[in-house]
């Protein structure tokens, strides 16, 4: 074959390569459509403990609001109870939905028992902050004790919350069509029972929060400002 022929062949080969490029682009596009994910991102560890503490604080606020609105229904009974009732009904609805997180946490703690604490310990053993890791190791017995107290408090909350919510729902149902003085008077014992249970729920959440604050302070490096 002559040089000229070889060169001509080379040009022809390059031309063949260029002809395959559109196909390659189609292939690349199709493959891109078939796989929907790009490179995985590094996960951000959630601060479960701090989040749980926030959930407990929020639950306490909800219970307080429910109790206050129930009181207001009684207070307004001989004036114009309808607006107080409407506010109370809204609060009950909020409690039904917004309490799910704290109830799920307390139920999981009870269901998993010591394994819940062990999992949390493993999480602490892997945090970036070396001081926190050392404090977790150093204060393990106190943390375990605090966790056990928190479990008992969770149990109290769990046992009383459902009956408390049930009483609130009953009051809502009874007063729904006719939030009059007569109806409110007739529901007095139910209202008092709901208030009593609400106080028990609040006590349980208070104890739970106290133990979580105790655990937080055990894990706080010296000189670090408290975070809420």
């Amino acid at each position, binding site marked *: 074959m002559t040089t000229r022929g070889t060169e001509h062949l080379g040009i022809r080969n390059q031309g063949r390569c260029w002809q395959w490029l559109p*196909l390659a682009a*189609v*292939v690349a596009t*199709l*493959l891109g*459509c*078939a796989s*929907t*994910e790009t490179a*995985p991102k590094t*996960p*951000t*560890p*959630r601060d*479960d403990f701090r989040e749980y503490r926030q959930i407990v604080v929020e639950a306490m606020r909800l219970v307080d609001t429910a109790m206050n609105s129930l009181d207001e229904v009684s207070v307004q009974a001989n004036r114009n109870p309808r607006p107080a009732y409407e506010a109370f009904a809204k609060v009950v*609805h909020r409690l*039904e*939905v*917004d309490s*799910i*997180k704290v*109830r*799920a*946490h307390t*139920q*999981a703690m009870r*269901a*998993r028992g010591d*394994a*819940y604490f062990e*999992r*949390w310990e493993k999480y602490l053993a892997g945090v970036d902050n070396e001081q926190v890791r050392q404090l977790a190791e150093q204060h393990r017995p106190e943390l375990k004790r605090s966790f056990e107290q928190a479990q008992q408090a969770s149990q109290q909350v769990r046992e009383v919350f*459902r009956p408390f919510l*049930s009483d609130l*729902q*009953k009051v809502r*149902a*009874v007063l*729904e069509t006719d939030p009059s003085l007569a109806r409110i008077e007739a529901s007095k014992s139910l209202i008092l029972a709901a208030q009593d249970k609400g106080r028990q729920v609040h006590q349980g959440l208070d104890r739970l929060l106290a133990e979580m604050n105790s655990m937080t302070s055990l894990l706080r490096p010296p000189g670090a400002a408290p975070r809420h």
Partner: protein
Amino acid sequence: MKPITRKLVLTAVLGLLAGLVTLSGNLARAQFATPFAQPNTPMAQRNAMNLLVNQINWFQNATRTAASQPNNGYGLLAQQFQAVRDQYAGFKSTLGPQQWNNGANQLAELDAGLDIIQEAFTDYQTGVANGQSTYTALANMCRVLNEAMGVWAQEFKADCRQMRVGW
């Protein structure tokens, strides 16, 4: 290569590639339509997660229409909620041993969350038994289920990120 043969090859390759893309999508849908034990590959996990999110969306849609169906709204929602549970069980079967270990607390909380949401059905029955109108009890139940499922879905997605589901 002769032009006709080259055209045939091109057509065959393109056809094969198009088939592969379609098939992978169909396989994903067919494979995870029922909640049986699944492989724990990242793709299987992503598919299972997406299917569950879709099921939750359908459930929330159902809560918006069921309130106006006092005769069969309850049954419809109970059925849809069970479908969510089944899909969640299918999702969990795609998780690997390390994900189960690292996410044990989160999974327990998600399990508990579904149990608590299910209490809304009992609350409906209690309300009606105590004299509440079916219509009002159903409307209350629908509102709670809709919002509660939204909260649960947020927690589910956050837990999936933490457990590195699909990575």
